[in-house]
């Protein structure tokens, strides 16, 4: 797309502002969470899980594909990473090898599964991804020799982070500095810095991705797949790419979370976990870059605060989720931005059928429609 110099400059300023604000947010996050009842470790967990949600949103928000099986990538990623440390290379455990191998394994897995599932639409896509996730859940659950079944992998200390010039123990804390209501700086571990850097990189990558031609074609396919093929794009390739990227980021998230927790269990692959990524993304704001991360933080923070007080946490989460789906389909972030484009659309687009016509009239083809 051709843009004038003024537009290009405005774009560059917007980019800079976005990166600066995101970095600032990431720096303040672990101490800002303290006075509201959180703790820096929770901030680390939120970022690590948030990476999976950001990836999932590429699939759900930008490609319009609702997967109910992201937990398989997340869970398998955590298992492969921990097995790399404890079983495959016990003599020379290496942080990078564990992460890279986990992501590579999950990427291949996503590619193979993706080739089978991206041909399906809507509910069929959701159900088939769900079926694959169940398959992997039971494989992990039953393959006791490798995975220790429902005990999971426990107490696997992550190797230090080798950077060439230095080797950093991520569990090490910052020096003690009293920050008043914001706790103490020594509560923050190097893990947080690492998680924040990775999250930032993932955000930058995703932002570039969805604004590239690839992202635009993906959106075009989501809005009208048939038309996009007429223009000469192969929707399957683009959807497969989105599926693989989402899967790989889920695997990265799982691998890092596993190394951070020093453990993993088959829980990581359940329908509940897959559903959680859906909940995080929808609550935060689908089709927004930061929404999934904010949704992950919001829900995990609430869970942390509320589940300390009452057993009803998941009930509250469910009610909250239903309320968001009903009243705020754009999620927390989407609700801020919704008004302007909607008003524009109402004036500009009149090709859609008038609201009076029941859209379920064509009952045979209704379920095959792409999400609008």
């Amino acid at each position, binding site marked *: 797309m051709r843009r004038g110099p003024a537009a290009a400059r405005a774009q560059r300023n917007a980019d800079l502002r976005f990166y600066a604000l995101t970095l600032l947010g990431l720096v303040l996050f672990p101490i800002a969470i303290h006075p509201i009842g959180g703790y820096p470790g929770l901030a680390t967990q939120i970022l690590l899980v948030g990476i999976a949600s950001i990836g999932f949103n590429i699939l759900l928000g930008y490609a319009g594909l609702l997967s109910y099986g992201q937990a398989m990538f997340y869970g398998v990623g955590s298992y492969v990473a921990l097995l790399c440390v404890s079983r495959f290379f016990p003599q020379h455990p290496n942080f990078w090898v564990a992460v890279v191998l986990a992501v590579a394994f999950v990427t291949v897995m996503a590619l193979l599964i993706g080739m089978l599932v991206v041909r399906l639409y809507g509910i069929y896509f*959701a159900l*088939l991804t769900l*079926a694959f996730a169940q398959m992997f859940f039971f494989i992990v659950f*039953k393959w006791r020799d490798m995975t220790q079944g429902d005990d999971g992998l426990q107490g696997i200390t992550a190797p230090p982070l080798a950077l060439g010039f230095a080797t950093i123990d991520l569990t090490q804390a910052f020096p003690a500095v009293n920050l008043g209501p914001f706790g103490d700086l020594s509560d923050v571990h190097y893990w947080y810095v690492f998680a924040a850097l990775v999250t930032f990189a993932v955000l930058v990558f995703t932002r570039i991705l969805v604004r590239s031609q690839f992202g635009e074609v993906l959106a075009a396919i989501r809005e009208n797949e*048939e038309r996009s093929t007429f223009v000469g794009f192969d929707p399957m390739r683009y959807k497969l790419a989105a599926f693989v990227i989402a899967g790989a980021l889920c695997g990265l998230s799982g691998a890092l979370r596993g190394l951070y927790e020093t453990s993993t269990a088959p829980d990581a692959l359940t329908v509940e976990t897959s559903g959680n990524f859906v909940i995080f993304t929808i609550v935060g704001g689908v089709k927004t870059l930061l929404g999934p991360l904010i949704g992950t933080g919001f829900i995990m923070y609430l869970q942390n605060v509320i589940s300390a007080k009452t057993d009803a946490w998941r009930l509250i989460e469910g009610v909250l989720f239903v309320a968001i*789906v*009903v009243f705020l*389909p754009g999620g927390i972030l989407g609700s801020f931005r919704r008004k302007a484009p909607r008003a524009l659309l109402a004036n500009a687009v009149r090709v859609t059928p008038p609201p009076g016509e029941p859209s379920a009239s064509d009952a045979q083809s209704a*379920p095959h429609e792409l999400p609008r």
Partner: protein
Amino acid sequence: MLDGFIRGLVYVAIALGLTIVFGMLRLVNFAHGAFYAIGAYVGLVVAQQYGIVWGLVAAPIAVALFAVVFDRVLLRLFYDREPTAQILVTFGVAVVVEETLRLIFGGTTRTFAVPDALSGSLNLGFTQYPAYRLLFAVGIVAIVLLVWFFIERTDFGLIVRAGIRDRTMVQLLGGNVRLASTVIFALGAGIAGLVGAAASPIYSVDPNTGFSFLVPSFVVVVIGGLGSFWGAVVGGLIVGELQSLTTLVFPAASDVVIYIAMALVLIVRPSGLFGESEVIRG
């Protein structure tokens, strides 16, 4: 073999509700397992007070009422939204129901005893089999036939079937599709509730029960063909047998095998064994 048949029949009954609701409302109901769980708990509570017969009466009625309220209050808003939004809202409701049950009844597993009159076993010539299970099997077969009769042989069923084909046309001809939809939704839910109550002496009940039966039931309807009546029946029996036969041969794979079957069916014949409509577009 017979155990697989019984399990298959449970799947048939749950999948039947899923599939007629999908046929009529074009709705994939992630809360359908929750109906089963509510039925199980209502049956449990009522049966402890008034005996199992009343438990079996109360469960489907309570669940059908719940379904009507759910439909009128929440689902109504989602008829014209995309299928994924419907999945999201029904999934949310399923979570809410599951957690409400957990709060009320606790997370522990419960069973209720088979009534004394039915606790014996019958000699079938080739094997001994618990009487309650046999009665259960007969009951489900009866339900399947009744639903079939209701949909295929009554005037009301005619509206339902026509509504599946062309909603607008039926509305123009004066058929009350709205009412038919609600009845079908309540019927599917009621069956799930009844089976939930009736099956809980066989399979234990816990708040997770809903999801643990829902997911295999999805497998059933996908294998049979979403929206297909006989697809749900045949699919349910296949899945039940597949599970129990694999348990005999290779127990470790018994849970995985049905998902492999489902993936194979979706890949080779995406519209399912009995599905008519094309699933793949473009």
